[in-house]
């Protein structure tokens, strides 16, 4: 792997190998092991990671806003990606009902109770199913 590509990946994903693209982890580790300059870049990225990890992002409800801002036109494609091989529309009512659960699992919203849920998904569902994307998504 070229040094420029290693820098690109560190700039994007930070220093934690767990966040690097899986198929590039070994090459990243090898490149870092043989180049002290790249290792210095990684240490710098690790410092920013440490600061970011100390911040509880949940307070801003950003995940809900991201989901709510997905344009309606992309709903079917997104669902197709989540649950492929369903060419007909018969599943859509059931899928819509299950959407909060599916997205909760996919997004990994660990602080949302899935059993006996009290979390209010109505805003997200409205944004996804009603297409009311109020954010400037294409910023």
């Amino acid at each position, binding site marked *: 792997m070229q040094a420029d590509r290693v820098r690109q990946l560190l700039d994007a994903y930070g220093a934690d190998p767990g966040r690097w693209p899986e198929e590039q982890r070994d090459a990243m580790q090898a490149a870092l092991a043989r180049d002290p300059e790249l290792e210095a870049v990684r240490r710098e990225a690790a410092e920013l990671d440490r600061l970011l990890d100390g911040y509880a992002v949940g307070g801003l409800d950003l995940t809900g806003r991201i989901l709510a801002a997905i*344009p309606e036109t992309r709903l079917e494609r997104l669902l197709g990606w989540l649950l492929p091989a369903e060419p007909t529309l018969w599943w859509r009512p059931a899928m819509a009902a299950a959407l909060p659960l599916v997205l909760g699992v996919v997004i990994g*919203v660990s602080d949302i109770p899935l059993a006996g849920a009290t979390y209010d998904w109505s805003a997200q569902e409205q944004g996804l199913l009603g297409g009311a994307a109020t*954010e400037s998504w294409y910023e």
Partner: protein
Amino acid sequence: VSADDATPGELRDDERREALLRRAIAALPERQRSALVLCHYQGLSNRQAAAILDVHVEALESLLARARRTLKKELKDHHAS
């Protein structure tokens, strides 16, 4: 510094740093912020996050890199002031 071990001054520093980071993240352009939240905080893979944001992985990496660059600059400027 854990909350149990921290002095009042250190706690204030932590609170200031968190407030700064919160403001800096909130001020990011929407798509950069979304990319950061999905990848860094929610732990999605690059392909999953790119699919949700409806961009190619290369574009996702650009969003992430710009977000991290901005946050690094904000934090560095704060420490320098």
